[in-house]
């Protein structure tokens, strides 16, 4: 520091500025030439001087502090040279966004092309990466976007936000913010909504959950149901999160369509195993659905019409680059298009969904999201309908409301956190009007109303901390207040001697905390991710804590291959009590109580994945899952009856699911497609059912196969086809029938309010059931074809016509199979006994029109 060049008097013009600013000012003010390499000097780094620096050397000393670089005067010049120590690292961070709409991009890879070390943008598009000062550039890549190579050091100070362009130019033009490629790793799928519209859909309604069913390990209980079943688990074992808000009922029209409006959804992530520690509360999977953030640049909208539904979407900036909204509305049209006479004869049904999101940028480090969803189903069935006359008129109305306020914050370039406050409500109203005859001249009019309700209020935080490029930490926790009123019923009828029972209500607190460490070892060949999730359910009569270890180990091999093994323990504090296999709003959610313990799952998986440069991907999985304390009922629950004490009807048992999955997928090019195959077993064992012996679970399917292809004939014309196959579901067929106990003793008669399904007949036989689920229904398979045509290139208004045919070869797939019931309306005492299969859909064409601006 004694060199004259370094003791030259110099007073900086400001105490704050970038390294580059001070270097340039020294050169300009003192005339001293300073030589440096931008390769290892982060010129845009902001510096705060102490105010005591009054020489060139003192200023340089301060601004170079901690950089590993020192100022060396040589031949009248000052050289900024790296110290003798090893390579220095600095952190770059920012958001990855879509170029047109500024929608954030999840799952983009950010890496140093030389060392291949990198990271992935998180659910909010944020990344943080430590790079060596010798690094000239970093690569931003995503399967759905053009790769961006960013020169280093970054040109601007502060965050390095990257804007990526969708690969499919056509979609970039027409559907800003949408791409159509899936990110897939062992046990994890991230699917953008653009992908959902790739393949044919029932009635043209694009459905994110049905699209997930193309992948191995997933299935549905019935043909074309959105009821998602993962690796032999029940529909209740999936944690559905809509913008972070848990949902309990996800079906419209008995699960035929999911409540997730394809227009509003940005992407969906499915975790089948290797669960990150931040998730908990369900046994089989996590389905994390995120809605669109809204276009920050310009207003766009679209409307879609089909013979059964209409939907509209509007998104755009309130303040450009500062705040944006997204609003989507969907409504069924069956009740609008058909008149009163139709409704009187057949009943009335309608559904709608509203999704709204406000996205507010506070500053480059802070952002707020406010999202809202409401979905509603209404159904009315007149007693004198012509399909199946009933004794009563029935009304059903069920709805979901969710609200989330999310605050994301870049605490520092290495640390990112999001804090979310949520509200979720499920409300199911049932009403019944009936006239019950008491005598020739007397009858009572019964008007009953039943309500089943769930309310959750929650707050939780997730924080990610990149310690260095090989070591990442995430941690957080949350609190949920549950308020369940599963069965509440009131009626106009005077109770008389009946005991007035209060509807049961449950007030519970659920606590969660988690920590997870992700380590890259052996030059990134070995990735280890241990984690621990803690959950606890507290209520006045019970307290259930649960520590759930998770671990994932991945061994990366040459040629884009890896092997992954994982273990996860999951605990589910809430139980769904249901008898039917269809997704009914009357399925009853109840908590763990003093008598009913939480359900637990121990999941093991082993996976292999290989990717080829031409974007073929192959994935194979083996899994084994043991379930404990899972509950079932062996009777029919009547939830609209306060006296139906559900705890007395619950049986706890175990389950064993195992299988293997294969996937071959072509992700890019004119021709893309998926081939997936699952071989699986799912068993259940309950002490008082099937003589305590294991029996196939109702959702056990031996083979599941999906083949879906899309061919881009022209840039503006796609053809697609999909074929799905699932082995038959198990069904209990009696081994024998024998005389009914009452009938055998000449005892006849109906119990009041309990009419037989087959009309006037008294069933005179009982079934002898040797084994449960001993018979297999017919396999379910159907071929669907579709096409999409884009019109209006270059115009402000653009048009999309989508059409197709569901179940091309008119396969009769089993929807309900019954032995004797439902079918026979005979007054003969004796009649043939037969198996009857009812199918829902034969060949069904669809057509929809969409306009966009």
């Amino acid at each position, binding site marked *: 520091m004694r060199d004259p060049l370094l003791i030259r008097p110099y007073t900086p013009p400001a105490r704050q500025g970038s390294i580059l600013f001070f270097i340039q000012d020294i050169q300009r003010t003192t005339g001293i030439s300073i030589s440096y390499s931008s390769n290892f000097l982060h010129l845009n780094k902001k510096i705060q001087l102490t105010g005591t620096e009054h020489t060139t050397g003192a200023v340089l000393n301060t601004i170079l502090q901690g950089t590993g670089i020192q100022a060396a005067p040589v031949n009248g010049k000052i050289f900024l040279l790296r110290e003798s120590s090893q390579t220095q690292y600095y952190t770059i961070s920012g958001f990855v966004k879509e170029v047109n709409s500024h929608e954030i991009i999840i799952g983009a890879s950010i890496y140093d092309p030389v060392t291949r070390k990198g990271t992935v943008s998180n659910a909010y598009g944020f990344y943080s990466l430590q790079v060596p000062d010798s690094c000239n550039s970093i690569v931003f890549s995503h399967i759905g976007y053009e790769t961006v190579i960013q020169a280093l050091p970054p040109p601007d100070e502060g965050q390095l936000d990257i804007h990526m362009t969708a690969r499919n130019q056509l979609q970039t033009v027409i559907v800003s913010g949408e791409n159509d490629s899936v990110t897939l790793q062992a046990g994890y799928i991230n699917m953008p909504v653009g992908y959902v519209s790739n393949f044919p859909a029932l009635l043209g309604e694009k459905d994110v959950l049905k699209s997930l069913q193309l992948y191995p390990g997933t299935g549905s209980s019935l043909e074309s149901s959105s009821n998602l079943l993962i690796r032999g688990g029940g529909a209740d074992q999936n944690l559905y999160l809509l913008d972070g808000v848990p949902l309990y009922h996800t079906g419209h029209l*008995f699960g035929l369509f999911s409540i997730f409006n394809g227009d509003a959804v940005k992407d969906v992530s499915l975790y089948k195993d290797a669960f990150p520690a931040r998730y908990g509360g369900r046994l089989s999977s996590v389905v994390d659905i995120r809605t669109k953030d809204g276009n920050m640049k310009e207003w766009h909208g679209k409307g879609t019409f089909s013979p059964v539904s209409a939907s509209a979407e509007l998104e755009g900036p309130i303040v450009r680059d500062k705040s944006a909204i997204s609003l989507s509305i969907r409504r069924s049209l069956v009740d609008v298009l058909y008149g009163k006479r139709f409704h009187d004869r*057949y009943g009335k049904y309608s559904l709608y969904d509203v999704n709204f999101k406000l996205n507010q940028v506070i500053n480059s480090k802070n952002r707020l999201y406010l999202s809202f969803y409401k979905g509603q189903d209404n159904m009315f069935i007149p007693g004198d*309908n012509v399909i199946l006359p009933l004794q009563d008129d029935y009304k059903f109305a069920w709805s979901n409301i969710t609200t989330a306020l999310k605050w994301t914050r870049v605490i520092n370039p290495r640390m990112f956190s999001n804090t979310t406050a949520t509200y979720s409500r499920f409300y199911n109203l049932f009403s*019944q009007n009936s006239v*019950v*005859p*008491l005598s020739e001249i007397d009858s009572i009019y*019964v008007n009953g109303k039943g309500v089943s309700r769930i309310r959750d209020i929650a707050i939780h935080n997730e924080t990610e901390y990149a310690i260095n490029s090989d070591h990442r930490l995430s941690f957080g926790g949350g609190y949920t207040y549950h308020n369940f009123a599963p069965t509440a019923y009131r*009626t106009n009828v005077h109770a*008389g*001697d*009946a005991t007035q029972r209060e509807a049961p209500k449950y007030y519970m607190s659920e606590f969660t905390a988690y920590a997870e460490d992700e380590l890259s070892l052996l030059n990134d060949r070995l990735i280890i991710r241990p984690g621990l999730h803690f959950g606890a359910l507290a209520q006045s009569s019970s307290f259930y804590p649960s520590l759930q270890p998770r671990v994932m180990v991945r061994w990366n091999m040459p040629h884009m291959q890896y092997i992954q093994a994982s273990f996860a323990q999951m605990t589910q504090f809430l139980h769904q009590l249901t*008898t039917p*296999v*269809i997704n009914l709003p*009357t399925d009853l959610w109840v908590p763990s109580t003093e008598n009913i313990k939480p359900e637990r799952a121990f999941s093991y998986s082993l996976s292999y994945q290989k990717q080829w440069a031409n974007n073929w991907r192959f994935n194979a999985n083996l899994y084994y899952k043991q379930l404990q304390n899972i509950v079932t009922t*062996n*009777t*029919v629950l*009547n939830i609209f009856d306060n*006296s*139906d*004490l559900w705890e*007395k009807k619950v049986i706890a048992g175990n389950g064993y699911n195992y299988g293997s999955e294969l996937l071959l997928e072509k992700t890019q090019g004119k021709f893309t497609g998926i081939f997936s195959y699952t071989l699986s077993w799912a068993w259940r064992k309950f002490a008082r059912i099937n003589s305590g012996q294991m029996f196939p679970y109702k959702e056990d399917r031996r083979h599941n196969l999906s083949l879906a292809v899309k061919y881009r004939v022209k840039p503006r014309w796609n053809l697609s086809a999909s074929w799905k196959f699932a082995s038959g579901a198990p069904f209990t067929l009696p*081994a*024998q*029938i*024998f*005389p009914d*106990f009452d*009938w055998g003793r*000449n*005892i006849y*008669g109906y119990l*009041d*309010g*309990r009419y037989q*399904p087959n009309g006037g007949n008294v*069933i*005179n*036989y009982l*079934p*002898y*059931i040797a084994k*449960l689920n001993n018979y297999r*229904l017919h396999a379910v398979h159907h071929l669907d074809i579709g096409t999409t045509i884009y019109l209006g290139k270059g115009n402000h208004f653009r048009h999309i016509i989508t059409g197709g045919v569901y179940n091309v070869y008119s396969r009769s797939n089993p929807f*309900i199979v*019954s*032995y*004797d*019931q439902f079918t026979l309306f005979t007054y003969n005492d004796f009649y*043939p*006994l*037969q*198996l*009857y*299969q*009812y*199918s829902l*859909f034969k060949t069904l064409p669809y057509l929809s029109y969409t306009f966009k601006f």
Partner: protein
Amino acid sequence: MKYLLIFMCAGIAFLMGCEKELPVPPSNIKPRTVVYAELIAGSKGEVRLGKSKPVGPGINNEFESVPNAAIQLLDKDSNLIETLQYVDDPNNNMSLYRGNKTLEGAHTYRVRVAVPDMKPVSASAWVPPAFKMDLVDTARTMLNGRPVLRFRFNIQPLPAGIRQYIVFEALKQIAVLDTFFYYSGQRYHLTENADLYQRVKNEPGVRLEKDTTWENAYLRIPCYTQDENADNNQIGGLNENYNAILFTQMNKPLNTCLYINATALVANPSLYIPQGRVMVYVKSVSKEYYDFLLTYEKLKRNPGLNSLVQAIQLRSNAIGGLGVIGGVNQKVFPLYFDEL
């Protein structure tokens, strides 16, 4: 309500017109002998026999009678008490066999059934001892808008440590009112000889008389309970109706109210309620019989054998066959509401 949703699904399928008969897979299993017996203390042994039908192609719900069985009633050490005799009555839906010996409470009996070409069936049943009970009061009242008849019972437990299984049920035995007249020393049914009656009705000694014949047919009367200790809680809600109300009792007296539907008490042709007498049963039964009745209640509540619901498996103690052989000690309260 529970059925409604399933009906709606079926309705949708009907609407779509996609119904198809499926072939039932052939079966190579053999029919079994079906045995139903309530061995009632103080009564003669009665056993009803039938044959099951293996589920396969081309079967119907008609069951053949079994008049050629050999049925033995044995004591607990397998000593023969008597052989039951076939009762030839075409009105019986199943073949009835009856003994002559009166059964006793607190005894175990064995039943052995041999039907030609069928696997033999055996079962044992403990007939509970007499139990002490009081009918505290009865009242007509309303229960959830329905007229009901309420019985308040007090039932004492069996000696300490012995579980008692209590079953309440109510049946209406159907009666046929026969009107007849005598003429020239002969008895004539009025309905069959209306012309003759018109001609001779004014002659001395000719007058109409009425007689009541009890049919071998019963109408089941729905029962209710509001007692949370009833095992019907394992089956359904307490506002629902049941074939029988079931209790497991040990050590403590059982004070409970049984409600039976009062609509069926009085004959009402428009509601298909025949004339007859109402019999309210309070039974103490063997455990195996109780287990059967619990599963039977569940099964009767289940809306059929279809793929939307889980099938219910009936419990049975008939080794080698199907059905149930139960021991019963009962008290019966006959009630007459119809003019007979």
